[in-house]
């Protein structure tokens, strides 16, 4: 157990192309180092959870992968290119608190925007391209199981229904990498598990690598391949059972942490200090 936990490198199994690689990377925001010395690798078609306390830099990691934030040190490669160069092949679902009930936009139009929202000019109805687009939109809505309510205004839908349509929007251009920032945040427990199961299925059927930012590992642990745990200004990556241990997390935080396994298999992390935590000296 301890040997596995010491290894920060991804395990070498069947050699697969890496969707995301970070080498000794750091991000600074407003003069503050959010995290540094981060090395990780996400293989294609892997389902990876990004975990850690509030303020540990989970959304920052997503934005660095998107190329919206520059690295202060180290290097990164996303789908074989520098961050920001592969925009068209990344599906992104930002952190949000849902659409409010007044939002009069249909789910199907929202998914369509994922496909052609960045195109200039007026769409001409009835053309071949238009029909192909409509077919793809219908297909991806079917894939997430949202066909029944896709033509209702998004503001009238429940959090789980909105989240499925937003995942469809992120998927519509057949990305090779899907970045989901806290998609389970506003959902109840059964819906969290259902969306996690959906993401697992998409991961396999569409052969897309998924990074999912989450607060709580328990509803999703059964569906994951790996986890990235951000805390104390650094990060650890590995299989869930290797990373979520008292020893590994204590070393990451630089403070005593205890991971308990409840009788139903749930992980309980005890002693987690809330960020902002002491940054920087961990690598000194």
């Amino acid at each position, binding site marked *: 157990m301890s040997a596995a936990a010491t290894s920060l490198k991804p395990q070498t199994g069947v050699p697969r192309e890496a969707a995301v690689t970070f080498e000794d990377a750091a991000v600074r925001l407003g003069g503050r180092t959010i995290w540094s010395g981060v090395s990780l690798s996400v293989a294609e078609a892997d389902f990876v959870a990004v975990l850690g306390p509030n303020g540990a830099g989970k959304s920052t990691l997503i934005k660095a992968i998107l190329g919206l934030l520059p690295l202060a040190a180290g290097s990164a490669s996303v789908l074989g290119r520098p961050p920001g160069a592969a925009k068209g092949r990344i599906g992104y679902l930002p952190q949000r608190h849902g659409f409010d009930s007044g939002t009069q936009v*249909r789910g199907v139009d929202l998914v369509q925007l994922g496909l052609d929202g960045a195109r200039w*000019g007026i769409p001409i109805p009835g053309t071949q391209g238009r029909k192909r687009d409509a077919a793809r939109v219908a297909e991806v809505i079917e894939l997430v199981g949202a066909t029944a309510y896709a033509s209702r205004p998004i503001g009238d839908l429940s959090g789980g229904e909105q989240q499925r349509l937003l995942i469809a929007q992120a998927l519509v251009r057949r990305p090779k990498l899907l970045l989901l920032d806290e998609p389970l945040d506003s959902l109840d427990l059964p819906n969290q598990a259902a969306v996690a199961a959906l993401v697992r299925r998409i991961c396999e059927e569409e052969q897309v690598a998924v990074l999912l930012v989450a607060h709580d590992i328990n509803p999703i642990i059964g569906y994951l391949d790996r986890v990235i745990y951000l805390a104390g200004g650094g990060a650890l990556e590995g299989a869930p059972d290797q990373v979520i241990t008292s020893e590994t997390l204590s070393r990451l935080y630089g403070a005593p942490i205890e991971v308990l396994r409840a009788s139903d298999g749930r992980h309980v992390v005890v002693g987690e200090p809330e960020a902002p935590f002491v940054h920087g000296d961990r690598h000194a």
Partner: protein
Amino acid sequence: MPEAATFQGLSWNPLTDLHELFAYQFMVNALEAGTIVAVMAGVTGWFMVLRRQTFAGHTLSVIAFPGAAAASLAGLPLAVGYFGFCGLGALALAGIAGTRRSLGAESAAIGALQALALALGFLFVSLYHGVLNGLDSLLFGTFLGVTTDQVVVLLVVAVAALGLVAIAARPLFFASVDADVARAGGVPVNALGFAFLLVLGLSVAETSQITGALLVFALLVTPAATAHQLTPRPMLGIVLSVALALAVTWLGLALAFFSIYPVGFYVTSLSFGLYVLVRAGRVLRARLRATARLALEAA
């Protein structure tokens, strides 16, 4: 004879009345100007309501008032004042949006700008020494004295602005609905927001020339808000918004022609009436559905 005809009122023969409506050049000009303005206000209003920028739109319309007053004071055509001030106002609003810390701070800054605009308008009117002729038409609109040249200017500006909106329609829709995802997908969200404020400024400047600075909302907001109530489909919504704006403009102009009351009153009341009707219809439909569901469950 022509003067008498204006105040003769309706003859109750629709054909004669319609003929009467088009018999005078000033009325033809007014109808042409009203049509151009209604189309422009219908389209930009639909996006403004979607983007929740009605307060910015209202501020631009208040800025139109000192613009027109300053133009009168300087002896320039009113259109120069409207377009000049609304353009500058849009730049100021874009500046506020660019530096914003929070939505609350933004609306407070816009409110401050609005107060300044009204105060400036009042100053310009006072500087005019005595009563500025037609102050109430600056504020509440008029259809008299729309010149053929003015119609041409309205048309050119509207075609240019609507051309821009057409080219940017989908990215603008995307940026309005979901700015974060649009930005990640390569849509220039900030540049679009800036360009839209400019188009909105032009739109307000055009609409002010018919409805007056204070009643711009009758064409810019109410038809668009009604269309948003009627359908969530973007293309259909824009078409509906334009159709409603056209309907209230034409009807308002005709009513003003045959009566002694001002056009701004009619356009505003008609569009407000439509909005109330549609809201009431929606509430009623929701009630009926709920009752039907209850009856179904009971059965």
